[in-house]
């Protein structure tokens, strides 16, 4: 089961403080669908304009990126640069 790790602020508001969520999902799009089903409002709070780290690799605007059974997923602010 993949682990989704939320920043404590989000966890406090949407998951009853649970920062580490375990989810079975083959890819990113099904992962967020499952998150939204379990915690209505969570994905809206994370926002459309977010980056995602899957096992340490950062994706901007992912859709069907594969998620492995032991993957770790983090949501991050979008990063630009100078």
């Amino acid at each position: 089961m993949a682990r989704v790790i939320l920043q404590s602020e989000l966890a406090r508001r949407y998951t009853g403080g649970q920062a580490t969520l375990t989810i079975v999902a083959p890819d990113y799009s099904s992962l967020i669908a499952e998150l939204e089903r379990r915690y209505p409002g969570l994905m809206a709070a994370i926002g459309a304009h977010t980056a995602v780290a899957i096992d340490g690799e950062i994706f901007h605007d992912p859709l069907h990126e594969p998620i492995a059974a032991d993957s770790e997923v983090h949501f991050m602010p979008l990063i630009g640069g100078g």
Partner: protein
Amino acid sequence: MGNEPKIFTKTYKWVGTRPVRPDGVDKVMGRAAFGADYQLPGMLFGAVVRSPHAHARIKSIDTSAALKLPGVHAAVTAADFPDLPSEVSAGGEAPVNFRHVSLNVIARDKVLYEGHAVAAVAATSPGLAAEAAALVTVDYEVLPHVIDVLEAMQPDAPVLHDDLYTSGVDPRPTTASNVAARTGFTLGDTAQGFAAAEVIVEREFKTEAVHQGYIEPHAAVATYAADGMATIWCTSQGQFMVREFTAKLLGMDISAIRVIPSEIGGGFGGKTTVYIEPLAVALAKKSGRPVKLVMSRVEVFKATGPTSGAWIKVKVGAKRDGKLTAGEMVLKYQAGAFPGSPATLGGMTGFAPYDIENASAECWDVVSNRPKCAAYRAPGAPMAAFGVESVLDELAQKLGMCPLELRMKNAAKAGTRALYGPKFLDIGYAETLTAAQVHPHWSMPLGPHQGRGIASGFWFNVGGPSSAAIHINEDGTAEVVTGNPDIGGSRASMALMAAEVLGIDYAKVKPMIGDTGQIAYSFLTGGSRVTFATGKAVCEAADATIAELKKRAAKLWKIDGQHVEWRDGQAWSTLDDGTDRAPLPLAKIAANASKTGGPISGAVSINAAGAGPGFGTHICDVEVDPETGGVTVLRYTAIQDVGRAIHPAYVEGQLQGGAAQGIGWALNEEYVYDAKGRLQNASVLDYRMPVASDLPMIDTVLVEVPNPGHPFGVRGVGEVPIVPPLAAVANAVSRATGVRIDALPISPPRLLKKLVDAGKV
């Protein structure tokens, strides 16, 4: 994950060499066309009317006197632009609120900083345009203003936006304030971490707003035809950004605008948004003639950039052996007139070089009556690193420990969890520390009033949408087209990578930068992404071209494509059927292209993932003059994990330039305001960026821990080198004087006062 990083040993024919850049001759001869170098027949010259006040309500704008002047053809105000709703769009990597961009380009109801644009005019000469601008009368109701970030956060501070409510706090505020947002990151339990600490260091820091300082002011020429099509020639870090932002601000279709990028005379993040381009199009539309707008240096200082000044508090706890147990950071960053400071990025980057189990960052984005901040090299990171790296230096002193050893003991490695969440993959931070330790600079003796500082820094590096097309010419030479302005030698890197993959000579590869109609979308030249992401697109375009070349070779040989291999710029038959087939060189396949199906090319567009984070460590020696407070940088060494240097000389240049900018930030540069909120030093002379006689040679060490996410192992290199210098310089001054530096810039009067207050002189 968790593999030991290896120093790169593979050698290539072209990658890693230092040939002359393809655009070099034009640039040393003055032939390269920068933003202000374009002229069109019948062209008018524009001038922008700007606010003399830091904060005021616009009661009325009257352009009639200006328009009566013979030779004045158009005037525009906010009334000529759509009143955009407040909504955040993706805008590429960083979210963009186009209402704010629009209001920054031309003020609607209020001016929010001195220099804020309120109107623009176009006339037959620059002199006449200036005269016309002076005839535009604006009736202002001057409002109280606020400049300082902490003052702007006070409940009784003058409020800039009556619809701005702090996001990220519970409960959501019911009154508007200047505090745009609070964000935060937590790892482990800091209370527990500090309880376990045997030594704790805590300190507050302050940095001033500084400008990117590119030597080329913003410049644009625009035309607008009766069919509604606009063309813009301009300097920017992204022609596609200019097209998208201008379309949005003017309510046009993206396809109605073509943006032709000029050469860019420096940007450093400051040319990642629009200022004058939509004004030039609006003036061209009204006048029916081409319009050129070029900013003066004063306008550049007052109305573009800078990056945030910041107030930062850092607290770290450690065991007596130097192992960090906890770290805590509070960051309050100036956003300027509209929300969007890089405070969050400061919070994400400050502790990134270190393996700290318990850490937190609390980041505040605060508006005040200053120009809206723009990206500047590793946005937000240098100020946070100034705080963290200074506190670590103090901790090392308290522990009686070598500051390099303290960092080594806590260095992040592959598998270390960053405060912002994920675990690092292959990174080369520890390798930069080892390189520092063995560098002769580290053990050079110091004289009286001299001190040595060390500091590290981190930047994520990014990828993103990138396109590349390779066209094989009839004689076997190649064009490589990309969509990213070449800000520091990237044409050379693109050509080197294409030559390497195709297997042909660097001299036979001609890189060019396409306009928005000539190449598919490519995100900004910024975030240290071009050599990585666009380079990746070039490598993939070369692969696609090779696939096509192999097909054509198979056709010429009348064999199946699976029996063709590509090596050293030639097709080789692997078919063992008794026929001897001499390898087909690229030029020969190209010469027969029409016989085998037409021109040969390969084009790809990707959303590049797999950017490799970068880490750097800098060593700085200074000498302090106790009589004047003057600081001289004696020696400077910049060490960085660059993944793989495609053109090492230009990589060294990035390290040297970033270090120089950071030294300026540390020692001299700052925005100085008077009591009325007017900028007092809006000239190059008074702002005082480093000049050649201020600096020593800047030695560089390129550590190469390959990034697995790029075919040649490239990591972005441009951002990291501005992160360590603030603290490297400050730590050197602290050690030279025995007085801890907690505010920048360390200008002579400030340092002298500090030394006098501490009883040191």
